[in-house]
């Protein structure tokens, strides 16, 4: 009778579906009022005690009213409209009492009680359009079939005399109708039991979500089943209860019929409550947006203690438990196939961010799930960025420490060179000149003294070049690179295309890359037949490349090269040491000019 596939109500986001329009609402209310009054008039209810038409009208109008409110509050939720439908069908039942040969009584006899079938449908399927659980689907189908069978039987066998067809003798017809009523009542009782079982099987948030509607449904089923009492009594299976028992029971069922629409309305409105639970989760996670906090908050909000969140780890290219091991792809597949659980993927622009493993019940509440997915996306992205920044911070701290240390080492080297080299030689020179004072060798001493001073000067020049080469200041990066190349013991070819762009720091860094790379070639690749140096600027950066055809295998973490990497990184540049095509080493640095 209906598609077996469980269908998830369309997105329940506000604005995604509009509630009943004002015109529809007014039309519905007017129809309910008019139809109710007309029906009571035709049924001649006003001649009966006042409570009968008042209870009739009140219950029908209450169902229609609650249904309209529910449909307005939750446009995507079918329960509201079903309640409205049940309310209109309720009025049909007004004509059920007694057969007097009129068309309306015949019609009422045939179609009475359908509101209970609609309520069964509502509760068995809630919150979806059609029930997803097989027992619910089966009992709904059986109940619907029995209702239709009963209608056909009643209409055919108890038609007004003008167009009555006699198929069976009247006694048999009564027996058939009575038995059909008993079976239908039994089916409704089973439907009520199915609802209770479904409720018992649900857990956490699903149970909380289902409870009001399923309990209301189950109670309705009791009253629907109880309508078979008359048939049972006539068939002799049930004692004839006196009015003193039946009337209070009827009143009790009337109370139930008042409570049921209100409870269903409450259940529908409570679906919004799930979103408030998510708001609580957002508040919890906001304080400490970590994956474990998110897991706990979602577990609480969704009422699924088993809920798991696995975050995508770019480093290993797999999902992993927060602060835990990676989850192999096949285990994820296994989780996906586990009955009762569902793996929900959280992506960002097509890139995997995380998966949420939840009970199927949660996964079938799309609104709640959507909120959970959004929250997860936010938190995981936040977490990933925090991790990235943390990594960068670690790198920056290490590099800062290395730069400071390198500067210290360099200062110590300069101090040693000044102390052990220049200072000693100058002291010796001063003593030598002092000793020559007034002696015959004076001229000789002066000559050798000035020669020694020139030699010292050469050392000073070397030392100064190590600190900051004068050529860089006087003639720029190109000349400095050429000068460094000219000093190279390995034949060097220079290709310089520089416009002179770049801050002093950028130029000096580019120079030190070339100079250190050349020193490395001299040290480790003396067997190289040549070294090629390229330097160019433009597009906001200076780019230098130093290649040699030596043995290769340069260690980028070696002292000199690591120092270069730090220098370049400090200026936000890029530095790489790799193998040259055809053998040898290739050092590339790009330094922003500003």
């Amino acid at each position, binding site marked *: 009778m209906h598609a077996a596939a469980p269908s998830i109500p369309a997105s329940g986001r506000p604005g995604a579906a509009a509630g009943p329009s004002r015109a529809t609402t007014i039309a519905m209310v007017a129809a309910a009022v008019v139809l109710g009054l007309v029906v009571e008039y035709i049924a001649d209810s006003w001649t009966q005690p006042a409570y009968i038409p008042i209870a009739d009208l009140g219950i029908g109008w209450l169902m229609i009213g609650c249904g309209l409110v529910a449909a307005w509050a939750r446009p995507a939720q079918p329960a509201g409209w079903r309640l409205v439908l049940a309310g209109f069908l309720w009025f049909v039942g007004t004509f059920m009492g007694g057969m007097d040969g009129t068309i309306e009584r015949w019609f009422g006899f045939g179609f009475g009680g359908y509101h209970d079938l609609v309520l069964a449908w509502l509760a068995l399927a809630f919150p979806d359009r059609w029930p997803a659980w097989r027992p619910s689907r089966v009992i709904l189908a059986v109940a619907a079939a029995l209702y239709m069978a009963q209608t056909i039987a009643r209409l055919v066998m108890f038609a007004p005399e003008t167009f009555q067809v006699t198929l069976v003798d009247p006694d048999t017809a009564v027996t058939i109708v009575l038995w059909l009523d008993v079976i239908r009542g039994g089916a409704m009782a089973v439907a009520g039991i199915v609802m209770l079982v479904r409720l018992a099987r649900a857990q956490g948030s699903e149970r909380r979500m289902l409870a009001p509607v399923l309990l209301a449904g189950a109670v309705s089923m009791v009253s629907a089943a109880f309508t078979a009492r008359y048939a049972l009594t006539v068939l002799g299976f049930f004692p004839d209860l006196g009015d003193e028992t039946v009337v209070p029971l009827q009143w009790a069922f009337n109370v139930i019929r008042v409570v049921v629409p209100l409870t269903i309305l409450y259940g529908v409105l409570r679906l919004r409550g799930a979103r408030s639970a998510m708001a609580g989760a957002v508040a919890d996670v906001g304080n400490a947006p970590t994956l474990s906090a998110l897991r706990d908050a979602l577990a609480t909000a969704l009422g699924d203690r088993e809920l798991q969140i696995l975050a995508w780890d770019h480093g290993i290219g797999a999902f992993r438990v927060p602060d835990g091991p990676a989850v192999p792809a096949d285990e994820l597949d296994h989780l996906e196939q586990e009955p009762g659980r569902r793996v929900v993927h959280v992506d960002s622009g097509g890139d995997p961010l995380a998966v949420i493993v939840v009970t199927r019940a949660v996964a079938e509440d799309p609104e709640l799930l959507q909120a959970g997915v959004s929250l997860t996306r936010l938190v995981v992205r936040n977490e990933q960025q925090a991790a990235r920044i943390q990594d960068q911070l670690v790198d920056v701290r290490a590099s800062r420490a290395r730069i400071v240390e390198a500067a210290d080492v360099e200062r110590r080297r300069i101090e040693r060179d000044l102390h052990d080299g220049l200072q000693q030689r100058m002291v010796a020179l001063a003593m030598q000149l002092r000793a020559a004072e007034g002696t015959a060798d004076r001229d000789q001493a002066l000559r050798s003294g*000035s020669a020694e*001073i*020139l030699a010292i*000067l*050469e050392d000073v*020049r070397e030392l100064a070049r190590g600190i900051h*080469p*004068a*050529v860089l*200041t*006087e*003639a720029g990066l190109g*000349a400095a690179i*050429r*000068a460094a*190349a*000219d000093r*190279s*013991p*390995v*034949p*060097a070819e220079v290709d310089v295309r520089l416009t002179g762009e770049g801050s002093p720091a950028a130029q000096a860094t580019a120079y030190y890359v070339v100079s250190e790379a050349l020193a490395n070639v001299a040290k480790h690749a003396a067997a190289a*037949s*040549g070294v090629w140096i390229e330097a160019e600027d433009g597009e906001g950066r200076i780019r230098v490349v130093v290649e040699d055809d030596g043995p290769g295998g340069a260690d980028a973490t070696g002292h000199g090269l690591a120092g270069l990497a730090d220098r370049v990184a400090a200026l936000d540049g890029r530095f790489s040491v790799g193998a040259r095509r055809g053998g040898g080493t290739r050092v590339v640095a790009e330094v922003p000019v500003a």
Partner: protein
Amino acid sequence: MSDVLRIVVADDAVLLRAGITRILEAAGWAVTAEVDNADDLLAAVRRDRPDVAIVDIRMPPGHSDEGIRATHAIREEFGEAVAVLVLSQYLEPDFAMRLLDESGRGVGYLLKDRIADAATFTDAVRRVAAGGQVIDPGIVLRLLNRRRREDPLDALTEREREVLALMAEGRSNQTIADTLFLAPKTVEAYISSIFSKLALEPAATDHRRVLAVLAYLQAR
């Protein structure tokens, strides 16, 4: 030109400037002005019309190549009437070639350290004043020692290399002959051999020759 050279000294290092002045005055020349920046240098040259200006490359305000630019300004205004000797902390072949190319005769480019050797220094001053060219031996040495794969200089004999170096320093054939204790004819023979081995066009004049040789060494 009188025997007593009139000289302007531009250097922002006071001690060095005083030392230079003392050496020049000891050589019997007159220092008409001592300045410490390029603007004052140009003013002094306009006022004193010296025979020689001795200019430090690196001067305020930029401390980079002010001396070279001042030299060009002097050349534009006074032509070869004012010889210029540029001093540098550091030898840069490009600067030497820019000087020779744009300034022609009567220019020199010396490492500052040479001042310590008064004889070499005064000789250089005398040579530029006489319209000669002076290139610091350090530049020539650096260019000659530059390591090259398949170096054409490998074809030269030891003697030819010595002659090439002296040519590059701006020495005349006579000076080369004197320095190497050779006959001028022999020097000429060496020079033509060098030019043919390096496939260089023989230069029309001595000062073009220096530039040609340096350019060759630099481009090698």
